[in-house]
């Protein structure tokens, strides 16, 4: 039979295309208009810092490349596109890494073309893939950077299968030039998560319609993608919630809804990718199609990540169906669908390995794909027996049935998505504990949300790209779909134009003009959460883009020889006399277990001694010995005394990752021996979180709480059920019921954490009171220093500061210390926000100023008088 490959000539030989190879006046005008729109796109990308710097560079290259490409004769366009694509690899990775990536890719292409049988070539490809996997895992030395692997993988991990499929079935010509264009296609270097573009479709749709219309579609999709990415930022920065912070039904709904809305990032990126390919004549189909408006699970599967669905259909579903249909159509359909979802789950982990380095096999993934697969099977069987109504155009009338089905599907997908995104199945179940906390306001808001959803979802919004001879309606013309939104974004991005009148809108828009972490991710990064839990598969894309830069040796202090895990309430300490290399800097611990020079236990005469306790920014993570802010503070105070009054000695009792409670333990056991005049406990805005984690560890590990009043406070929460024998079962009522049946159970860690979060402020208050009490008993002044790593201060006041004041501690608020400064220049590394020596000097100077301002409270005058 005639295969599409043999029927389809190479681009240069097609007569119809040849007619369009030399642009006339209309084309020239059209190309100029498209180029102008692309310049507007570039301005928006720059103004809002969309994605990263590489993306801007590649888009700039694509814009210039588009003009040259469109003006070239058709026969030269594909070679030019391939060359431009290869150039972007070098632009993005630099010469050495770029060439390495291309060479590693060429090896795979060469294997695909070896004069061997099909299966021997597949075996060779698998063997080469296994070798690459060893390199990806960092198990073999390699002369190139590890960062090339996610992009190389995204170019080949699925597309090589489609390429081989095309070669096997002669679905499209496979020449070296086409292979270069296909595998290294232009925007891929910016997007490791990339749509699985089908080889046959890639070339079947190449300049098969009016070029100008194709280019216009490309710009429209790029603009749509940019809008998706900005909406994603809005959701990510301002609407998402930490599952630990859920308190009411409203919080729960917001959390579930926004978790699904975060998918806008993927659809935004894919729109940009496919839009960019349109600019070079590849009239590819849409990757996503109004997926929030799916009216059934099968419909959802067809609308979201369409390229993945098509990839699965081609390589898994149809071959499986053809094998199984002898058992009947329904059996074939059920079997093939289940195989598809099983393979999707497996390949999801495979993809994760190449992109992030781990191979997650997690229960929530299995549940998500299993449930979605079952729901799609159910929907497909229903459609087999009762075909869905199709229309060639959108249905003119609003339909309640469509509205309810769409809202129902959306709600169910949101719930499923929240399960998929959860840290664990138990944390997801525990999350629902707050569903009973409904206020009238939240119920009304939910009703409003539902009504709005029904009103929107009842209308058929179907709009597909059309390439017929009719002029598009006014609302689909480039001026409306591309130019207007771009101009509006440019106007919106210049916040100084309207900031005096609407400062809130200006602040909101300004927050979207950059790729920053939201509160939750900033907190996770701060505490090295993922280093401890290895939960990289649940890490947000935003956080991952930063964490991926971190070298392998960049570990937490707890993984080093300088750290000791204690088996008591204090939990942590430093090993006396340890000398290690930590985060590329020497770290020495003195004989007293302090990250400091040696100090005599006895306080020298005429000396005002300050004991500073705190986490990593006090200990000095990523700083050499002597570069901590406590060292600089001592120098500043010595300088400011001007030869008059007492000397100053600042003792550093910092331990990375320690909570206020660890600080209390270190204070009572160690610091008090040095008879300090001033005791400073330090923490970040996340102080309540670390205190909760501390209590959880103490209870979970079965260490006694040496303070009766604190012990009573913790007991009231019931979290000692965490150490009961038996498997973890959420909800006290369920545990009681099982207990009545003689089945032993314990409280899950997540539930215990939630219960402690409800009393976190009481725990913090207790700790401050105890610090103040101890300081007073030992004749010292107690103080609390609120200090964060380099970054902007939180939008809301930190409750702990007022609690510290109420407990009688002097407070130093240094949260604004980084504001208005070049923050990137003050961090120890792009992936680590700890302050560098320049940053710690700034802290020391600010703290010294504040101490001078509080001289009387700190009894500095007393010290002067008595000494």
């Amino acid at each position, binding site marked *: 039979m005639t295969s599409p490959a043999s029927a389809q000539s190479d681009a240069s030989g097609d007569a119809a295309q040849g007619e369009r190879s030399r642009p006339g006046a209309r084309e020239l005008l059209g190309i100029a208009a498209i180029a102008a729109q692309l310049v507007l796109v570039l301005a928006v990308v720059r103004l809002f810092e969309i994605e990263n710097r590489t993306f801007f560079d590649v888009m700039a290259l694509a814009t210039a490349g588009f003009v040259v490409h469109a003006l070239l004769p058709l026969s030269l366009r594909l070679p030019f596109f391939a060359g431009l694509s290869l150039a972007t690899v070098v632009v993005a990775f630099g010469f050495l890494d770029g060439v390495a990536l291309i060479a590693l890719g060429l090896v795979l292409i060469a294997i695909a073309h070896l004069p061997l049988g099909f299966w021997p070539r597949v075996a060779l490809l698998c063997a080469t893939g296994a070798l690459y996997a060893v390199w990806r895992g960092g198990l073999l030395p390699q002369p190139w950077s590890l960062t090339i692997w996610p992009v190389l993988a995204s170019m080949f991990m699925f597309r090589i299968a489609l390429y081989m499929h095309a070669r096997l079935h002669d*679905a499209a010509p496979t020449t070296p030039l086409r292979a270069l264009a296909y595998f290294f296609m232009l925007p891929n270097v910016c997007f490791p998560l990339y749509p699985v573009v089908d080889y046959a479709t890639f070339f079947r749709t190449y300049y098969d319609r009016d070029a100008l219309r194709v280019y216009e579609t490309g710009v429209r999709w790029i603009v749509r993608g940019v809008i998706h990415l900005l909406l994603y930022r809005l959701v990510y920065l301002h609407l998402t919630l930490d599952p630990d912070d859920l308190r009411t039904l409203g919080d729960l709904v917001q959390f579930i809804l926004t978790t699904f809305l975060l998918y806008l990032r993927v659809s935004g990126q894919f729109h940009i990718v496919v839009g960019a390919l349109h600019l070079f004549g590849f009239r590819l189909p849409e990757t996503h199609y109004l997926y929030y408006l799916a009216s059934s699970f099968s419909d959802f599967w*067809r609308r979201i990540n369409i390229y993945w669905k098509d990839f699965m259909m081609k390589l898994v579903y149809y071959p499986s169906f053809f094998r199984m249909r002898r058992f009947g159509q329904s059996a074939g359909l059920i079997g093939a669908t289940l195989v598809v979802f099983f393979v999707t789950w497996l390949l999801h982990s495979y993809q994760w390995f190449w992109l992030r380095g781990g191979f997650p096999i997690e229960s929530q993934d299995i549940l998500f794909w299993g449930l979605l697969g079952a729901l799609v099977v159910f929907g497909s069987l229903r459609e087999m027996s009762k075909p869905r109504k199709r229309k060639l155009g959108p249905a003119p009338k609003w339909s309640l049935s469509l509205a309810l089905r769409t809202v129902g599907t959306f709600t169910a997908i949101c719930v499923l998505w929240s399960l998929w995104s959860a840290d664990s199945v138990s944390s997801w179940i525990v999350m629902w504990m707050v569903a009973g906390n409904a206020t009238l306001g939240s119920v009304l808001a939910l009703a409003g949300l539902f009504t709005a959803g029904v009103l929107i979802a009842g209308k058929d919004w179907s709009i*597909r790209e059309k390439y017929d001879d009719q002029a598009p309606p006014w609302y689909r013309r480039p001026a409306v779909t591309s130019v207007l939104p771009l101009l509006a974004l440019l106007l919106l991005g210049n916040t100084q134009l309207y900031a005096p009148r609407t400062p809130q809108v200006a602040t909101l828009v300004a927050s979207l003009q950059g790729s920053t972490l939201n509160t939750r991710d900033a907190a996770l990064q701060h505490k090295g959460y993922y280093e401890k839990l290895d939960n990289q598969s649940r890490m947000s894309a935003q956080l991952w883009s930063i964490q991926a830069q971190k070298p392998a040796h960049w570990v937490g202090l707890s993984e080093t020889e300088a750290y000791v895990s204690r088996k008591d309430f204090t939990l942590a300490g430093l090993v006396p006399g340890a000398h290690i290399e930590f985060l590329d800097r020497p770290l020495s611990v003195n004989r007293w277990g302090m990250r400091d020079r040696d100090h005599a236990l006895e306080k020298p005469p005429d000396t005002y001694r300050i004991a500073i306790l705190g986490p990593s920014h006090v200990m000095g993570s990523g700083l050499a010995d002597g570069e901590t802010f406590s060292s600089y503070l001592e120098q500043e105070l010595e300088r400011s005394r001007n030869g008059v009054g007492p000397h100053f000695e600042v003792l550093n009792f910092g331990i990375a990752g320690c909570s206020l409670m660890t600080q209390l333990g270190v204070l009572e056991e160690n610091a008090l021996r040095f008879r300090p005049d001033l005791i400073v406990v330090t923490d970040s805005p996340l102080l309540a979180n670390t205190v909760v984690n501390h209590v959880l560890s103490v209870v979970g590990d079965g260490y006694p709480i040496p303070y009766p009043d604190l012990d009573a406070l913790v007991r009231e929460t019931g979290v000692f059920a965490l150490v009961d024998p038996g498997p973890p079962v959420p909800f006290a009522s369920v545990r009681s019921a099982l207990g009545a049946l003689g089945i032993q159970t314990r409280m899950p860690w997540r539930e215990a954490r939630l219960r402690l979060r409800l009393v976190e402020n009481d725990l913090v208050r207790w700790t401050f009171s105890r610090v103040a009490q101890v300081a007073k008993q030992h004749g010292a002044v107690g103080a609390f220093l609120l200090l964060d790593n380099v970054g902007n201060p939180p939008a809301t006041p930190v409750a702990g500061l007022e609690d510290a004041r109420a407990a009688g501690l002097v407070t130093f608020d240094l949260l604004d210390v980084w504001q208005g400064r070049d923050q990137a220049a003050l961090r120890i590394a792009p992936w680590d926000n700890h302050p560098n020596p320049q940053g710690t000097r700034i802290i020391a100077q600010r703290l010294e100023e504040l101490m001078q301002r509080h001289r009387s409270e700190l009894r500095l005058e007393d010290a002067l008088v008595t000494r």
Partner: protein
Amino acid sequence: MDASEIKNTVREYIVAEFLPGEDPSAIGDSMEMITQGILDSIATLKLVSFLEDHYRIALAPHEVAPEYLDTLDAISKLVLAKAAKRR
């Protein structure tokens, strides 16, 4: 059996089975039915069964793809090629 006859037969089948009430002439020979979402996976499988039964041909799994079934033009080419092979 020629291309135009095949296109008309398939067009009528598609309208009767999947687009009741639509005007058959609205489906042009080059209209992309799979790409445009008119034929989803289930409809495509039904169309495959129809082609196999009606024209006594057998399709391979890789032929259930837009390259072969997206348009009436492509379908007619496929059927003619398969029929010719059978002869």
